[in-house]
């Protein structure tokens, strides 16, 4: 597998970006809040979120349902409008960043168009952005190779397994080379084995491309394994209760690292944070 990936990178015109340079922020939230007005009174989806994500960082968001982790991601993507505080994405407003096509979004489900082949699904954003046909074909081939789907381009989504479909949707989010990758529980619906495999692939991808990744998950192991930092959130109101730094695990992480004492200690801390945030639920 790795020779083909190396080949893909040789074709790539841009060199893998270096790790985060100091002073460059990808996402910066200050006292961010989002309140829905409902018939039963206001619902505080997010409140007082302060967070800065540097370029090239991999940050996970973990917490129980309703803690606002997905809402925060959707605010960054300008799919939701915050009702208070400030939010900057790559130095500009979230709306402007969306219009500039600064980010690729990977949803919980692959969200592939069933009437398009895999390669035409990956080409969809390129078509919308008006990328010429020849370049489109070249990029689609490169990114399908990057997610190990070469040879499946002519298949329709239903002919692929769930894991392959989600990989295709990752290729679709990467192919227009956004600076930022927003992933909303992308592997939540997959079984453990496939999930492990995709986690390892995603980590490799992150190291190679140097993208900033914001990753929402339910899984403690997944969050700690993938991330430089894990943001632990709690509901009612959605807020950050702890930020666990996992950089000590290094950038090269074999799957077996999850059995090391260092890893388990970090996972334990995340679990403690989740428990503290939900003490009143028990």
């Amino acid at each position: 597998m790795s020779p083909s990936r190396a080949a893909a990178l040789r074709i790539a015109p841009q060199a893998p970006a270096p790790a985060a340079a100091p002073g460059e922020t990808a996402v910066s939230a200050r006292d961010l809040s989002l309140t829905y007005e409902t018939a039963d009174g206001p619902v505080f989806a997010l409140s007082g979120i302060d967070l800065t994500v540097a370029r090239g960082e991999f940050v996970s968001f973990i917490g129980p349902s309703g803690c606002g982790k997905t809402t925060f991601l959707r605010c960054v993507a300008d799919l939701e409008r915050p009702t208070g505080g400030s939010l900057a994405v790559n130095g500009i407003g979230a709306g402007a960043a969306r219009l500039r096509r600064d980010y690729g979004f990977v949803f919980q489900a692959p969200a592939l168009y069933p009437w398009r082949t895999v390669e035409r699904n990956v080409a969809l954003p390129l078509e919308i952005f008006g990328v010429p046909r020849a370049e489109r074909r070249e990029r689609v081939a490169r990114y399908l190779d990057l997610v190990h789907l070469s040879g499946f381009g002519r298949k329709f989504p239903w002919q692929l397994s769930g894991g392959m479909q989600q990989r295709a949707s990752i290729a679709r989010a990467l192919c227009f080379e956004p600076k930022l990758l927003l992933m909303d529980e992308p592997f939540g619906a997959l079984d453990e084995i496939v999930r492990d495999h995709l986690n390892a692939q995603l980590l490799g991808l992150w190291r190679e491309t140097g993208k900033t990744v914001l990753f929402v998950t339910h899984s403690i192991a997944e969050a700690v394994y993938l991330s430089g930092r894990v943001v632990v959130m709690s509901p009612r109101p959605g807020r950050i209760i702890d930020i666990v730094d996992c950089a000590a695990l290094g950038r090269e992480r074999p799957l077996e690292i999850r059995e090391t004492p260092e890893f388990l200690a970090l996972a334990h801390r995340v679990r403690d944070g989740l428990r503290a945030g939900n003490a009143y639920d028990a």
Partner: protein
Amino acid sequence: MTPEARPPRSGGHALPVAAVVLAILALWYLAALLGNWSGAADALVRAGAAPEAGAVAAATMAQERPVVPAPHQIAQELARSLFGLPVTSKRSLAYHASVTLSATLVGFGIGTALGLVLAVGIVHLRSVERSLMPWVVASQTVPILAVAPIVIVALGAAGLTGLLPKAVIAAYLCFFPVTVGMVKGLTSPDRMLADLMRTYSAGRRQTLWRLRLPAALPDLFAALKIAVAASLVGTIVGELPTGAQAGLGARLLAGSYYGQTVQIWAALVVAAALSALLVAAVSLAEAGMARLTGGRPSGAGAR
């Protein structure tokens, strides 16, 4: 699944299909026998013959103007008027069918185009939905038989005769299913697919062409099958009220004026066959589209 477990492709269906056809024919002959009995008996008496059961039964199958023509009489009439006459003859059913077919197709085209435009407008502009939808619904509650003469007379006064007035009536009937089907289809993509287009900051036009329209295709074809049959009905209705010179509707009307029941039934059979052919053509187009779009025309699910 083992090959033996699979039912044979056509053999499995041939038997029930044949049984139903035979049952219909048997019922039809029975209806002809009963329906024509008294007329046939009277005719025999008038001719001075004894109305014996066997003779009356035979006569019910061979009357010139039966109440219920027997299937073989209709078959003979069809053979004569479809193939026994030159296609250009005014007495040829093929000629009348082609007149009706051309108006049907033009009406279908107009109605489909109108239905599509309305649906796109309704989906994109609240004001169009609010202002037009009540009229669209109201238009379908008016009996077409009442509207048809008005349309023909009004267009005739404007100098439009022949094919176009009939096509307008056909379009009047067939735009509605297209509008309703397309509105459903265009709004069928789920939230996630729409969000995806937003993350690409795709405009309305891009979203329409790349997401809504392809997602609407299965609903569109379902609507088109209804629309094409409705279009044929509209055309025939349009041929009825004005003493049109040609077309299946004119043929039906002439048949009823002169009590030519066999001619009426033959025209009816041709109309039904035409309708079946048109629906089959739409199905064929649908199958072709399904093959192009992945063989699973099941709407726009996210999975």
